[in-house]
């Protein structure tokens, strides 16, 4: 009897934690998009006004921030400095492929960043500024979408985890 109760409680706790993990993804995605926006804003300043080298500009812009995109930018900067790839686009795509597996990063941001990476460093300052603005606008729309998804599904996953845990425990009891 004691074993039964203990295992039921374990099942309920595990399912609740799984539900919370699922709902945390939505929250973390909003945070990641917001961090990405500020990284791009920093990067724009570095490129358009200071004309820093790109790897150094990337390092300067991520210094005070964190989140899942930080590792992406660190990798890009490393690849650029160590000259492991032939071009910026290749280094960019290589790191994008790595961050693709992260569950807290949505597909739309990846698309936005992919298109942005194709344009980065390919034209003069005025044009670069335009591309930064486009990326920022798209990210803003995506942040709004992520917020709505969080409102809609975040709570659902949290309560669903607990309820499904209870259901499994009752069926097996």
């Amino acid at each position, binding site marked *: 009897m004691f074993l039964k109760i203990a295992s039921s409680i374990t099942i309920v706790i595990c399912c609740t934690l799984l539900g919370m993990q699922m709902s945390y993804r939505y929250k973390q995605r909003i945070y990641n998009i917001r961090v990405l926006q500020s990284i791009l804003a920093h990067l724009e300043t570095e490129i358009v006004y200071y004309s820093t080298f790109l790897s150094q500009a990337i390092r300067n812009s991520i210094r005070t921030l964190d989140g899942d995109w930080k590792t992406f930018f660190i990798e890009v900067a490393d690849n650029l400095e160590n000259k492991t790839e032939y071009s910026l686009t290749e280094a960019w795509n290589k790191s994008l492929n790595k961050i693709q597996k992260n569950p807290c990063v949505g597909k739309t941001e990846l698309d936005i960043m992919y298109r942005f990476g194709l344009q980065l460093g390919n034209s003069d300052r005025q044009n670069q500024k335009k591309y930064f603005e486009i990326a920022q606008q798209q990210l803003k729309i995506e942040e709004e979408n992520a917020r709505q998804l969080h409102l*809609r*599904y975040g709570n*659902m996953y949290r*309560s*669903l985890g607990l309820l499904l845990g209870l259901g499994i425990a009752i*069926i097996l009891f």
Partner: protein
Amino acid sequence: MNIDIIFKIAAIGILVSVVNHVLTRAGREEIAMLTTLTGVVIVLLMVVNLINDLFNNVRSIFRLY
């Protein structure tokens, strides 16, 4: 005759109705429908033996062999 199964079925019913409500609120009607169906199937699997017993009893009481 075990009385536990009645409480079990009642608990599953309550849970399924709450899950259904949550899913409907989140706008996933098709999954809510699926949950309800799953609940019905699980409860049916639990009571199928009892229903079998009931029919056997009815048959033996009225001598319908």
